[in-house]
């Protein structure tokens, strides 16, 4: 499904297009949610929230989707569900204080979090292949000794230094982008 074509039709709130998007994408969205501790009702809710997020975002900034619409929609659904699950975990474990906002503020926060993630992923794609590889292992919380054992780095210290440099490069790229100003934590 061509990204921009479906985006433009969706924001017109065309019911035929919405039905087409639903028929094509809902089974895989539902499947992802069922596989990750949710139920059909959760899947319906996430599907609805994701379409609303796209429409609302387009109303403020006429953004475009460079690739496939289905893949973009799926990414938003996965993020919204990941957000829900982590929120639930925080509430249950009480590790961090969870502030309760009204529905509309919370949806705005989720939208800005999505934009922040897109920016970070875009910048991550700009760093070197070697940095991407080591940071992927780092973000997956792979222990340093395992990284040493499975890569060509000679010691934990060398890995730490490499991770440090790669993160620094990534942070520089993010900070340099003007979009970060309105998305950064103060």
């Amino acid at each position, binding site marked *: 499904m061509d990204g921009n074509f479906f985006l433009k039709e969706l924001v017109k*709130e065309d*019911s*035929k297009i*919405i*039905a087409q998007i*639903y028929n094509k994408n809902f*089974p*895989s969205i539902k*499947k*992802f949610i*069922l*596989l*990750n501790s949710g139920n059909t009702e959760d899947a319906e809710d996430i599907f*609805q929230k994701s*379409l*609303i997020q796209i*429409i*609302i*975002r387009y*109303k*403020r900034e006429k953004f475009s989707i460079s690739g496939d619409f289905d893949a973009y929609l*799926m990414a938003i659904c*996965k*993020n919204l569900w*990941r*957000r829900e699950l*982590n*929120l639930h975990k925080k509430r249950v474990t009480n590790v961090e204080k969870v502030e309760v906002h009204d*529905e*509309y*503020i919370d*949806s*705005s926060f989720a939208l*800005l*979090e999505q934009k*922040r*993630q897109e920016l*970070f*992923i875009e910048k*991550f794609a700009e760093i070197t292949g070697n940095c991407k590889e080591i*940071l992927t292992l780092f*973000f*997956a*919380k*792979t*222990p340093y*000794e*395992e*990284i040493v054992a*499975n890569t060509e780095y000679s010691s934990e210290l060398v890995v*730490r230094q490499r991770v440090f440099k790669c*993160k*620094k490069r990534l*942070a520089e790229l993010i900070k340099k982008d003007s979009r970060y*100003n*309105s*998305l*950064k*934590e*103060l």
Partner: protein
Amino acid sequence: MSLEEDILIERFLRNQLSEKERNDFLYTIANDQKFKEKFLLEKQIFETLNEEEWSYVSKIDVTEVEEYTTLYRNNADRLKQVIHKATTSNKRKNKIRRLSYFSAIAAVALFALLINFYSQKNQKTIEEIYTNYSTYELPSLVTRNPNEVDPDLALAENNFKNGNYQEAIIYIDKLLKKDKDNSTLHLYKAISHLELDEYSQAEMNLNSLIRSDLIDSEKGYWYKSLLYLKTKDLDKCKKILQVIIKNSYSKNKEAKELFKEIVNYKT
């Protein structure tokens, strides 16, 4: 930022600091604006690019938040109705189309057909049945002992869980070269092919698992039944389910339920 500061932030984010170290860390954040900025960016990157977590907005410039909140307030409820209507009207249209077709037929035939129509209307589609049963509850590939974690296991599992089956297969194949007798890996591989609609490859993987003397080889039968369900080969699916039920293999409870659902299925 120095390497030492970076390590300190990382240990804080991974919850590895002692109570005293943690208090000192929080004190520094409260009193050193530059360090706080570095920490906040590091935290956002770590939480965003680590697939288990999520980076929540906490305190950012309010301008955009307010603009979006206003847009949500003015449009969200209406949009919910539009989406709800669009996603349910499709089903209604199909129903109306079928009813007009039947109304053209003679009364007796109509009566007979209507019975058939209503029973089929309530009948789930094969896709729906498949979706309900294909919630793969596979054991995790990653052991809880951090000293034994192979990064490829984490990458295989993450890609699998996120539906990136092609990438998952790359790591699974690497892992199978090191550990060819790991039946869980064979299942992950077969299911990945199944999800990619590569049925003959999936069938081949499951057959070799079933034929092996590995401890979990019987689990292959359940996934083979799902394969035939997905390809709508209900006769083969039923035969496999009967094998599971007869031998009380793994998932025999689910097999009984699925068998009941499809035994008289009208295609």
